[in-house]
């Protein structure tokens, strides 16, 4: 049996580990164009902020892949003939497979704007983007960050730490509008506005980016204002890397469509990570959830199914935890105000200065958002997966969230080595 895994980051690496556990003797080939060691992409924001040295991002070196018995090809997959079971590589090599996992992720969503310097926008997805941003950092200079999502926020804080004056330009009325509810979004917006060195422009978009005179770049905003900056960086979300699969015969929509076993429309091809348009628990449809824990979990489930062990995927769930201004912000499931119309909200009694809100749809828990709340989001995420109803949450839990016994804990004896999946 020959397994080929395209992409060796979160989903691909997890899949290789589980393929090896499930098939000790199988041949596993990993295809990834980036040089080893494989690094953890989300850590680039920590390097930008100066909180970590670049080598700290490396997580899987030659030794790791050798011990796992995975042959790594430093090559790029450029075509797939699903009907014939053949993967075409950039080097011209053709790779036959018995089971293929597509885990080649996503790329930054391009910024659509006019101007002769529109191509100068830096993105923030991988090591090369980080190098590009770092090369343009000028302590004491000015930067513009487009996009008020988590990446935009991290870029802003990172550039600020590098000594730049940052203008964060957000199309929505408040930052993090897709990730958190109005209260937390407002809170983050106020903190940003009060942070020396940061200018927050909400409900604003950039109309053109041109070569400037005083500074390298000049941005024209839809408000009519102009902004001279040394650096423009954008975090506008990601698009699945489906371009090279156009003639593959696989069913693609936004990403590559996957069923409840993470199998694509071809029975030998599986899909995991940011590329996979797979069932989503709270939305009920198939969509991509480009977050780390989902990618790793999908890699595991896809690997088990590739190895012939039937593992049903419960569905993905959007979840995020990031430190913001010394506080810890957490969100899971449905919290975006545009998606929670008609839902019931329960504010949980939390210790002073913290905030935790649960979102219920038709009595079932579908989301939660918190700020400095006790770190109980894992419990809530599992409660969302189990379809926990409002009446199943003990009053004692809601009244004493700091110290209450966990929701997920079964009664009676509790044994180590709980099993999931």
């Amino acid at each position, binding site marked *: 049996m020959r397994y080929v895994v395209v992409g060796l980051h979160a989903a691909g690496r997890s899949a290789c580990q589980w393929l090896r556990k499930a098939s000790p003797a199988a041949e596993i080939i990993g295809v990834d164009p980036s040089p080893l060691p494989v690094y953890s992409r989300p850590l680039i924001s920590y390097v930008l902020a100066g909180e970590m040295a670049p080598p700290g991002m490396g997580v899987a070196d030659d030794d790791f892949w050798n011990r796992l018995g995975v042959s790594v090809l430093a090559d790029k997959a450029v075509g797939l003939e699903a009907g014939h079971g053949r993967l075409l590589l950039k080097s011209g090599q053709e790779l036959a497979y018995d089971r293929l996992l597509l885990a080649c992720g996503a790329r930054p969503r391009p910024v659509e704007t006019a101007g002769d310097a529109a191509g100068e926008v830096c993105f923030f997805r991988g090591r090369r983007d980080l190098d590009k941003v770092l090369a343009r950092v000028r302590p004491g200079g000015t930067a513009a960050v487009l996009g008020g999502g988590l990446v935009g926020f991290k870029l802003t804080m990172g550039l600020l730490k590098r000594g730049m004056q940052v203008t964060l330009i957000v199309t929505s009325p408040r930052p993090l509008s897709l990730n958190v509810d109005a209260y937390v979004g407002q809170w983050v917006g106020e903190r940003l506005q009060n942070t020396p060195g940061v200018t927050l422009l909400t409900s604003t978009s950039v109309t053109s980016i041109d070569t400037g005179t005083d500074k390298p770049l000049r941005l024209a905003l839809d408000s009519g204002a102009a902004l001279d900056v040394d650096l423009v960086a954008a975090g506008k979300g990601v698009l699945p890397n489906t371009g090279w699969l156009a003639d593959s015969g696989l069913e693609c929509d936004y990403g590559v469509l996957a069923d409840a076993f993470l199998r694509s429309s071809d029975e030998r091809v599986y899909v995991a990570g940011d590329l996979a348009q797979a069932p989503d628990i709270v939305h009920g449809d198939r969509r991509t959830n480009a977050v780390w*824990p989902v990618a790793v979990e999908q890699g595991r489930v896809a690997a088990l199914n590739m190895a012939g062990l039937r593992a049903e995927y419960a569905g993905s769930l959007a979840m995020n935890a990031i430190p913001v201004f010394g506080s810890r912000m957490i969100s899971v499931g449905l919290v975006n105000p545009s998606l929670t119309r008609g839902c019931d909200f329960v504010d949980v009694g939390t210790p002073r200065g913290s905030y935790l809100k649960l979102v219920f749809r038709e009595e079932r828990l579908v989301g939660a958002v918190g700020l400095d709340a006790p770190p109980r989001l894992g419990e809530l995420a599992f409660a969302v997966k189990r379809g926990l109803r409002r009446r199943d949450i003990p009053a004692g839990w809601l009244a004493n969230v700091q110290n209450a016994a966990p929701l997920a804990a079964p009664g009676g004896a509790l044994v180590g080595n709980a099993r999931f999946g």
Partner: protein
Amino acid sequence: MLKKTVIVRPELCVGCMQCMIRCAQAHSQSKSLACAIREEILAKPRIHLGVGPENKPFPNKCRHCEPAPCQEACMPWAIRDDIAQGLKIVDPTRCIGCGMCAMACPYYVIRFYQDAGAPERPSVAVKCDGCHERVAAGAIPACVAACKTGALTFDEVNLYLKQGTNRLANAVYGVKA
């Protein structure tokens, strides 16, 4: 033989918190209670006492799940496997304190403190490590050693389940166990 693990019976817990104190002591630099409270970076307990219905105590610690949601969520790969003892152990020198693990943990057992294992970091994930060093040296986990009521025991799971079967049999036949 299966690996031994810490087995929790919350119904026997009286909420004395001795397990928390001994856990912190076992994870201190000095391993001595009198000295541990004077250490610059205070060791913290990795077992916590939750409050259940009617204020009943609930000892709560890491279950060392497999697959572990915390390990899957960890971006810098700071949670490693101790395969010999079946444990998931946080490496404080790799932890960046992002909070993803606590977000993924279904049991609310991960906390964030400064840790003597990585004093340069303001806060890292702190959770039960199964007292792997003590166990490797032939001792039992500190929380179990501290527990006077049998709420925490260190046993092989099937043996424990067999004892449970015996207790059930005694209950059915009206014999006080």
